[in-house]
């Protein structure tokens, strides 16, 4: 275990509040009459504390690592205004369906410091996705902290056969309000730049959720939007203690792609949705962690504090 605690005030972000801190942007009506959702994202160089006392010179989206968890609804028009206030060229490359011009690679939305670019595309397909900087060297831009979750909720009207399930995924519905939704980005940091990670975490700060367990109410189901952006190591994993879950790989289906498992693997940029509950469990502390024991002991370990009510 790491010694001490990280000051969220100094970092400007707190792993505990990050779990439920979605960026919904601003919703308006587009020229074609469709809903238009606008996000504003800035690339900023920032030194962050990734474990007690360990500072890391990060490149960030909106001053936080991972960047803002963007959330939209299937079929909306999305507009992302991206400004580069960093010291290097950056971009936002979205995992989704869009034109090559909006891909955020060199020659298509990769901008120099001081410049601005507006990415525009439709929110599709629904699922649990991510965005990240695609500037070269890619590895460095990834592990310096330029990534974030990008979730598209399904539109129940487009999925009449599973409308109930879709509604439970759609933010703002009463069906969705029952769920305890958490966004977790599995990341790691190479603090001495030798192409090996010294620290592993979920949402950046090593051991954050073992020092401050995540409160879970027994009676409400849990849904985790899980994204892996770990650099250098080929895979990362999620293991839930004393319980099993259903898994939706990439979140692009409304029926599970894996049923009743307690461990899933993800390669870099792989992601998915986990659904489980503690309805029949005894209240108490339940662990979750990567089942690479090395990652666990280097920071990627947390606890659910399951409570009655």
């Amino acid at each position, binding site marked *: 275990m*790491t*010694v001490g605690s990280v000051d969220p005030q100094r970092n400007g972000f707190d792993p505990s509040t990050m779990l439920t801190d979605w960026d919904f942007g601003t919703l308006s009506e587009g020229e074609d009459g469709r809903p238009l959702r606008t996000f504003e994202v800035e690339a900023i160089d920032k030194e962050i504390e990734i474990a007690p*006392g*360990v500072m*890391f010179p990060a490149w960030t989206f909106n001053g936080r690592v991972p960047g803002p968890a963007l959330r939209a609804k299937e079929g909306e028009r999305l507009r992302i205004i991206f400004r580069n206030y960093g010291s290097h060229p950056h971009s936002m490359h979205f995992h989704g369906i869009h034109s090559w011009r909006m891909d955020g690679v060199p020659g298509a939305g990769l901008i120099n410091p001081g410049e601005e670019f507006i990415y525009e595309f439709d929110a599709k397909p629904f699922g649990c996705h991510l965005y990240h900087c695609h500037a070269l060297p890619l590895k460095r831009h990834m592990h310096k902290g330029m990534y974030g979750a990008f979730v598209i909720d399904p539109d129940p009207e487009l999925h009449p056969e599973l409308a109930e399930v879709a509604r439970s995924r759609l933010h703002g519905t009463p069906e969705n309000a029952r769920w305890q939704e958490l966004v977790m980005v599995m990341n790691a*940091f190479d603090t*001495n730049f030798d192409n090996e990670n010294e620290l592993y975490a979920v949402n950046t700060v090593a051991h954050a959720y073992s020092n401050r367990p995540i409160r879970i109410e027994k009676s409400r189901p849990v849904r985790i939007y899980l994204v892996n952006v770990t650099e250098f190591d080929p895979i990362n994993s999620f293991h839930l203690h004393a319980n099993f879950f259903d898994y939706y790989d990439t979140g692009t289906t409304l029926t599970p792609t894996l049923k009743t498992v307690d461990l899933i693997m993800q390669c870099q940029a792989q992601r998915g949705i986990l659904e489980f509950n503690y309805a029949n469990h005894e209240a108490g502390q339940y662990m979750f962690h990567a089942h690479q024991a090395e990652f666990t*002991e*280097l920071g990627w370990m947390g606890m659910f504090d399951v409570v009655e009510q």
Partner: protein
Amino acid sequence: MNEVAPQSAISTSDRIRRFLWLLAPLLVLAITIAWIAAADPLKNFNNGAPPVEAVTFERTVLNSAGMQFQIRAGGSEAMTVAQVQVDDAYWMFTMTPAGPLARGSTAWISIAYPWVLGEAHRIKIVTQTGTTFEHEIAVAVPTPEATQGQLQQQAIVGAIVGILPVAIGLMFYPAMRGIGATGMSFVLALTVGLLTFLLVDMTFEALELAAEAAAIFQGQAMVLLAALSTFLLLMAIGRRAGRPEGIALASYIAIGIGLHNFGEGLAIGAAFAAGSAGLGTFLVLGFAIHNVTEGIGIAAPMVRNRPSLWVFVALTLLAGAPAVLGMWLGSLSYAPQWSALALGVGAGAILQVMVEVTSYFLRTTRQEGKYWLTLPVLSGFLIGVAFMYVTAALIKV
């Protein structure tokens, strides 16, 4: 009287003036330091890069409480140890004194880690800037503690590798007494040969250790300067009353060899503490055979004297007992820079006796009006070097 007084007055004022001139450069230096500190003219060179950090692991202790390490900071600024990994896992640790480590200062890090006997462990310190410093425990064994039993056991080993072989070597003395001029040349050349081996061996050993030490000790320069200073100091002491011969020369050889055996003791003790040497019978016997020639070397210059028995006892202890001392120090408090320093001093002492034995030998041949580089001399030297080299193969692990 009248003439002397003004002269001394002049010389006093002269002295004051000279003293004032001495102050002038020091004053300018002080002003320069104050100006650099206050105005910081080098601030434009600050490119935003993090400070350079350096950590040296000086001591490792493994016991029932876990692991303890003494580290020394050597960065460009004070540095902070943020986290500690053992075998790629973060472990709770305590550091005394806590807080930032000033350049050159030391601290102890304690970790309640359940280390495994006979296996390897890797320690990694992560500093505030994310820089890492690694230390490997090749074979984990409990660190010897200064108990009476432990000290006694080590004293026995020290006696076997240091005192016993010197005593055995000195027992050749009666046989050596009868030898003629040729035999004498052979024995003295043999002595120089073995001393040459010791000098080379010790210097490289010292430089190797020096490389492990923290940069602020400038280990390699320290070793060479310590050797040179010791050499000059011992030369000056040895020649106060003419060139040393006989028992005096034998004593200097014993001192030089004693310092070498101290270094050997340190190495065995440290290897013992680090678990890298099982200290097998083979190794101990190797040291004993290797060191027998040392006794012959001490005996050589006394062949034409008639020393009493206590002289032999004293010489044996002078040359052999430091091995015991070295064992104790090496296993209980091992820091590479102090071992390197001890070996550097030893190398200087060996060089002094090499010079003195050679000088003694050249004087004798000159008195006898002979050419010095004869077959017995050459063969004596080469056999001395070769014997030491071959027997050293037994003790190099």
